[in-house]
């Protein structure tokens, strides 16, 4: 297998890095997808169950679905322990583990989204319709108003114009065959998606309150009935409510929408600043339910803007999350050196991403005895006892190495993009001195700047015998380790992944 295949293939997000544009990254990652797919289709499918970005998983599903399996029995390519439909199950499993927004985007890739070609075959149709409709009415109701136009596009793609026309004209037999087998009550949802009045089709088997509210709000907005519209805001997702307000030019303050409409737990955090700016009554954000990365991001956002509100709560939530996090054991006596130089700021598209990822990685490591921060600029917030370091200045990484070796640590973890410049070569010089004079320690270099070339490139290597591990998301440490082994022992890794498949998805 090509040495140029690494865990980066599961970590791609279409956003640039500090030093690499997104199209460069995409081309490099696409080569990895193509390479592993050609080398071993089963391995390709199974690796996608490891932790990775939604985009990577979507692109990998697209690759599987757009390349039909050429087989006489359907089982030639299926190793022991897997069933003939394992690929479809892997794709469905991955979709169910994404945020709904990302899962929908991944399905839209099959309909030509995000620069992908359209794929239309029976497996694809099944994946789309099963994912959308194989759920209870309450979930379907919510999905149908949150993602109305996207769902319509997907249903049109999966059914085809002709079948969709027949169903929308009351062909209930066809509806049952295509959609009813997943949810027999879903007909009103189809009508909603394509702006048809369900009453025209006789008896309705189920009531979808959110859809009802959607049409009630739309009618009120259309009629300019602000009083009635305001009554319904609390039942609408904020994007839908804001959409009606803007489309129908309703004279309702933005703060009313942002204060009263529905928001997901994640949106409550990501929209916190916007809600405050609008002057809306502040919403209670459940910080403890948020992801660690999002919490660090929220904290840094507040620190950067000199906002002290809720800093204590966020800090407590970070501590609580860190404590609960399952941790990776690199061995006893771990010391971390965190590069806080300017390049760890990341790109303008994802400001602070490498640095925040680094902070989360520290929380994901067992037995951390000390952390040394190289460069950076400290900032305090008045009225709190909190201070944080922001990425700034040059990268004298050799200083971190000296500090870490001085502690006598056996395992030194460097979290850095590897661009040593102050001055270049000093790290290797000091490292070589320590190794030559009998200091025993092991260096693990984690590179949190996701870069397609992070592992195979040479410029980001701290020393000749230290191979960097690209980890663009703290959740992918395990993924990285499995990929490391894959290069050495394909069959053992395949067996390990089959076992993981059985555990997560089910056996044959």
């Amino acid at each position: 297998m090509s040495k140029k295949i690494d865990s980066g293939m599961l970590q791609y997000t279409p956003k640039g890095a500090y030093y690499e544009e997104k199209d460069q990254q995409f081309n490099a990652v696409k080569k990895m997808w193509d390479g592993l797919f050609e080398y071993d289709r089963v391995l390709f499918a199974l690796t996608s169950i490891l932790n990775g970005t939604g985009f990577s998983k979507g692109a990998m599903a697209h690759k599987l679905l757009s390349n039909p399996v050429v087989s006489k029995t359907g089982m030639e390519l299926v190793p022991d322990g897997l069933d003939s439909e394992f690929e479809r199950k892997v794709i469905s499993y991955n979709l169910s583990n994404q945020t709904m927004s990302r899962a929908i985007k991944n399905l839209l890739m099959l309909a030509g989204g995000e620069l992908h070609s359209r794929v239309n075959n029976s497996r694809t149709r099944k994946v789309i319709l099963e994912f959308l409709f194989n759920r209870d009415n309450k979930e379907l109701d919510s999905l149908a108003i949150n993602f109305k136009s996207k769902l319509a596009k997907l249903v049109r793609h999966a059914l085809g114009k002709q079948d969709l026309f027949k169903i929308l004209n009351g062909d209930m037999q066809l509806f049952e065959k295509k959609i009813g087998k997943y949810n027999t009550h879903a007909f009103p949802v189809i009508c909603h998606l394509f702006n048809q009045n369900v009453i025209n089709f006789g008896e309705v088997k189920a009531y979808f309150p959110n859809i009802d509210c959607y049409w009630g709000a739309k009618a009120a907005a259309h009629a300019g009935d602000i009083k009635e519209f305001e009554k319904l805001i609390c039942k609408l997702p904020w994007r839908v409510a804001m959409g009606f307000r803007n489309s129908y030019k309703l004279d309702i303050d933005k703060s009313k929408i942002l204060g009263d409409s529905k928001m997901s737990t994640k949106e409550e955090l990501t929209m916190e600043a916007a809600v405050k700016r609008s002057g809306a009554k502040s919403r209670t954000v459940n910080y403890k339910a948020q992801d660690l990365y999002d919490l660090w991001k929220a904290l840094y956002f507040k620190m950067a803007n000199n906002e002290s509100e809720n800093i204590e709560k966020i800090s407590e939530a970070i501590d609580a999350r860190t404590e609960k996090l399952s941790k990776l054991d690199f061995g006893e006596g771990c010391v971390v050196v965190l590069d806080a130089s300017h390049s760890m700021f990341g790109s303008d598209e994802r400001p602070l991403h490498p640095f925040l990822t680094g902070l989360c990685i520290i929380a994901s490591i067992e037995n951390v005895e000390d952390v040394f921060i190289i460069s950076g600029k400290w900032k305090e917030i008045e009225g709190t006892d909190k201070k944080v370091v922001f990425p700034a200045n040059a990268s004298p990484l050799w200083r971190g190495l000296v500090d870490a070796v001085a502690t006598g640590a056996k395992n030194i973890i460097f979290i850095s993009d590897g661009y040593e410049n102050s001055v270049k070569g000093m790290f290797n010089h000091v490292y070589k001195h320590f190794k030559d004079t009998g200091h025993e320690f092991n260096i693990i270099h984690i590179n949190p700047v996701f870069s397609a070339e992070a592992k195979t490139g040479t410029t980001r290597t701290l020393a000749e015998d230290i191979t960097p591990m690209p980890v663009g998301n703290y959740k992918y440490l395990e993924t990285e380790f499995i990929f490391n082994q894959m290069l050495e022992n394909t069959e053992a890794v395949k067996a390990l992944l089959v076992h993981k498949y059985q555990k997560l998805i089910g056996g044959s």
Partner: protein
Amino acid sequence: MASLLETLGFIKTLGVGEVQSDDEMTVIPLVGESLGNIASPEAMKFKRTTSYGSMQYNNTDKHYPGIVPANMMVRGKDAQDHAMSGSGVVLAASDKLFKNACCVESSQGGYFSGQNVTEDILPVGLRKVLLDKNLRQRTSYDKLWGSIRTWLSGLRKVNSGTRAHLRDFFDEPNYKEALENFAAAFEPVDGQIGALILFNGIPVGLEIMPSAEHWAAYWKWLIRGCYGSQLIKLKESGELPRSTMILPEIPEDVSPEQLKVIMTQFIDNIKMSIAPLLESIQVASQDRIDSSGQMITELIRTEGGGGGDVITQNSKPVYLSLVL
């Protein structure tokens, strides 16, 4: 600091930041307070080309004049790529059309009129050509074509034939990656407003911006487009002998603390070398070439064929860009 900066009137104290190096390039950061009252980089936008050989900039700042750094280059689709012949000053809340700009893409037609552009700064070799006052002030869009062809001719991976397309270099994947690596290898330090740039220990450029905000906005284009590209060119044409920085010897029985002292001393010595380096740069002539309001631009020539622009505001220097 050094006599050169005193000669030019940079009397404020400039400090030296953490020295950075990558391959043959060393950047010695200059740190200090802001100079004058100059519009922020965000306020200065390239607007369009109105004819071949023209570049229009807009300054949205309502109070302060803005500076277009010397030899800014814009590249984009469906229009002819252009570069400034020198630096430029645009008064507050106004547009300015620079009619002496150069086309840097000979056989492409079309004007820029609002589409996205990629910005960079011309390589040192081409900037030096434009130090000739007559050439710089001449309104002739093709005035740099011959020099571009010569500059491109020594590059192995560029196959431009007879066309003068600088983008043949900047868009070539290997060179593009090398330039990105230069940009990634250097980082602005706290309070940095400028830098002395060296190839193998020899000064090749001195850049001072009005503020740290300006340095933060433009340093990447200087490092990659101006100096990085020239370094690649010199290496490929064999004009730059390879050299390795000799790092200090470390005694076997040294403690970590002592080791830190040795290495820190080594870096401090590099920092201290900046004063004699700057003293070695001698101004041969100063020639006023433009004035806008309280801003005066002078073309400086240094001994040895270098030079560039210094801009003053109310007689105090606010910008300097020299290629040496």
